[in-house]
């Protein structure tokens, strides 16, 4: 009897301790998500009834499909470029070069600046009369007209990279720093040159860190809003499309916006599942090397 009472009491305490997080989960995540799902199946402006029209209209529209494709292009390109930028940077900063602490701090700058402010700063810097173009026009021979960077898809990818590469860079740096130097020394002792050590030992071992960072970069880029809103010009990905549905038409098209949000969520989760699977495999291969 006493044992039974004790068991119940332990369960009660566990439940009591879990209660705040459960309430947070239901209140801040589950309930709003449920509302969004329900709304996405409601006919526009109605509180009753069910329809698939919000989904079919968006997915059957050429513009809708272009928005999805654009979102993927922007996220994948910026993630790939972030990785390409992060790995050499992390390898350089690992060497504790002069002023490496300042460089590390600078890597974090895009994370602490609000996206909107960052986007405005980039627009000013890369604009036709921004510092970049002033420099190019003054010092680069043969360039007589300002280079067009703002409001182009390449420019937008570049802005994404600037804002989101710290995720990849920080996790890569962290993976590099947790690497046992003895492993690299062992490789060198075995006769491998620096490139071989990097190619066959270091890179495979830090791959899980790079992939973890790239997932974060991809997710941030996929959901990017303020940067494409301000700096995207005609390139307006999913998050901006959702905003457009609720901010421009009167009355706001909440059901259409919810359906696009659901499409965005599903695509994000599906892509993440595939990505994580690849990442696990890559991690496994790295383990094999180890």
């Amino acid at each position, binding site marked *: 009897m006493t044992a039974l009472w004790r068991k119940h009491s332990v369960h009660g305490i566990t439940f009591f301790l879990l209660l705040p997080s459960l309430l947070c989960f239901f209140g801040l995540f589950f309930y709003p998500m449920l509302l969004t799902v329900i709304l996405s199946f409601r006919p526009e402006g109605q509180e009753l009834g069910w329809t698939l029209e919000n989904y079919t209209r968006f997915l059957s529209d050429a513009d809708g499909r272009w928005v999805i494709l654009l979102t993927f292009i922007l996220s994948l390109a910026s993630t790939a470029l972030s990785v390409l930028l992060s790995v050499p940077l992390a390898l350089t900063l690992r060497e504790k070069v002069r002023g490496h602490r300042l460089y590390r701090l600078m890597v974090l700058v895009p994370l602490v600046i609000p996206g909107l402010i960052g986007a405005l700063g980039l*627009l000013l810097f890369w604009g036709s*009369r921004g510092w970049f173009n002033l420099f190019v026009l003054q010092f680069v021979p043969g360039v007589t007209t300002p280079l067009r960077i703002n409001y182009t898809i390449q420019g937008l990818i570049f802005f994404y990279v600037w804002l989101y590469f710290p995720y990849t860079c920080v996790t890569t740096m962290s993976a590099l720093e947790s690497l046992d130097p003895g492993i690299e020394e062992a490789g060198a002792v075995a006769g491998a040159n620096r490139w071989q050590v990097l190619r066959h030992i270091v890179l495979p071992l830090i791959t899980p860190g790079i992939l973890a960072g790239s997932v974060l970069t991809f997710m941030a880029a996929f959901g990017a809003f303020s940067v494409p809103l301000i700096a995207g010009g005609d390139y307006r990905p999913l998050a901006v499309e959702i905003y457009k549905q609720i*901010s421009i038409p009167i009355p706001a098209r909440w059901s259409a916006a919810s359906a696009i949000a659901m499409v965005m969520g599903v695509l994000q989760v599906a892509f993440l599942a595939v990505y994580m699977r690849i990442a696990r495999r890559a991690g496994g291969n790295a383990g094999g090397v180890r």
Partner: protein
Amino acid sequence: MRMRSWATTAFLVMVGVALVAPVPVTAGMPTELVVADSMSGANFQTYWQKTVIPAVKQVLGVNLRYLVTSDAEQIQKTKAWRPGQGDFHILFAKSIATWVKSGVPLETLNTTNVPNSAKILPEFLKSDEGVDLQGKALLYWRTSYALIHNSQYVKNPPKSWHEFYDRRAEFKGHIGLIRPDAKSSSAWRQRLVFLHAFLKDKMTLPIEQLEKDAAFQDAWNKLKDFTKYAKAPLASEPVNLFEDFNSGDTHIALYAQDYSLWSARQGTMPPTIRATYPEEGADEIGTGYFAVPANIPPEYKEVAFKVLNYLLSDDQQIRLITTMWQYPGTEITDQVPPIAWEMVPKLDVLTKTAIPRDRIRKDMIDYIKGHAKELLP
């Protein structure tokens, strides 16, 4: 000896405080009021905080707490007033019309409690947005959109929309248009004003009838064609339009006169920005009003009246145009320094060209938003 030096010091401090401290309104009166602003953008908020509040403090000894708020929130709060929720309000014409219509308790304002209100044209005290204001509001300022142009590039700005359309090739790639699906009201305002210039009186026709009218179809096609001459891509929001002006890509655009010229002074727009009005009109006349809740304590009311009277004084009203590029609410145009008219057209130009409010139609705005795709180049 020490006692005497203390007494001297205390006396000097008291004299100093008496000289430096502003004169209080009246003994026993509140020295702090809350001004609730549901209307202003960044320009006016800065103006109030940097210029108006210190001036009121210095001249009247009243501390103004400036509360940036929303109209819907203030309607509820004013109906059940409590201290700190707004002792007087700054409101758009649409808002004051809604407040009066929905029976928000507001004090009647007249020349007895606010003597400077005598300088406001009676027509602006009588009605706005088609609603009888019942003496519940005082006009603070007037403003409008205008053809904002960078005088460095545009030496001879178009005098009418017809001329602007005819000369569109001259401005190709440099006309600033906000995307028709942007959040900013300039998204539809730019198009509506253009259409009005070609339709004029026909703008009063019901939308179904208007849509079928040959003149409308012609104006709509002209608008689509005009869009092709705009700077591409179209500005996502006003901030992009401003950046396009700064980069020299945009030379001319229809936008809010006050905000553009204020921005030029702040350094966020080129200093060579000027404003002009096309003869078919650039906008309705935007109006800003003061209102005082009827249910605030009488001693608060009295101080609020004094503050409003000061804000309608010539000094404060002239500052509106010389600092904010907004036209005074009171009729003191003759006192405005002539240099101001080098930057903005005179008020009578604005009043002559302004588009009547009933033509800034909600159904037309919805039509423009609904057909936004057609208006992208």
